[in-house]
């Protein structure tokens, strides 16, 4: 699917994912943990784009409209520039929520939060 617009964010907040697991308390008082998957899930990336042009903001609006939380997509190197982040192979991003925009005196600031999901086939 279409890659996220090639925009460099003004700031990023990254929250790594974790392996799904269930902690179990045993009779001795020790705690065991059962891991349900080899994959990590729940990676979150929140990006703020400041001083966007109307066309740049519209590229995010259009991308969100056609993907939303449903259709997964990739991020370009531009969006992840200087992040030094690596992600599991074939994982893709979806929008964690609806992006938010603030416009005042022609200055556009948009915040986007993404969630990394493992691949699956229907």
């Amino acid at each position: 699917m279409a890659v996220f617009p090639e925009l460099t964010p003004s700031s990023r907040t990254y929250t790594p994912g974790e392996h799904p697991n269930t902690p179990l308390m045993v009779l001795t008082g020790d705690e065991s943990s059962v891991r349900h998957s080899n994959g990590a899930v729940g990676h979150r990336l929140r990006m703020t784009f400041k001083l966007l042009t109307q066309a740049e903001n519209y590229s995010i609006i259009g991308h969100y409209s056609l993907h939303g939380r449903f259709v997964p997509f990739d991020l370009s190197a531009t969006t992840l520039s200087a992040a030094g982040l690596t992600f599991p192979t074939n994982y893709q991003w979806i929008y964690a929520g609806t992006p938010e925009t603030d416009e005042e005196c022609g200055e556009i600031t948009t915040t986007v939060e993404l969630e990394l999901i493992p691949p699956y086939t229907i």
Partner: protein
Amino acid sequence: MTTFPDLPPDRIGYDFGALNLSEETTIGGGPIRFRHSLSLGGHTLALTYSWRTQTEMQQIRDHYNDADGTHRQFEVPTTIWGTAAVVNTDSLYRYAEPPQEEHLGVFFNFTVRLRVVDGISLLFDLQGGGATQSTITPTAFTSFAFAGNAPFILNGGAADPDSPAATLILQGKGADR
């Protein structure tokens, strides 16, 4: 249905709405999503007005009362959005909450929060019919799927239907060639 007053705000804040989805969680993987329609809606639009006169404030009060508070839906002038093209121009809105007023002597600050109840359909129909070459002067056109100059023309030319040069396929339901 009374259109919202034509009062461009000093500041707008909005989100991009959401698809009609339901989700199921899994034990070992990510969320599984089900999309129920190709409609995008529920956008929230926050309008901030600063240092306005009582006449302008009264327009908002009157409109809120005419709309029966959060009950009735209405259209919003394009000037409210400025140059932002987030929803269709004929989208319908409701008040998300009563307008908030701040009285500063002669002037007023007020904030209005609206919610889009009829947002964007992501289904595009290409209608051919008895079309002829358009004589309309191309105009700048931007939609969620198309960007360029309208009208968009699909040229069939003298393509051989058994060995078409073009790769674009329009599927017209069960239509025969």
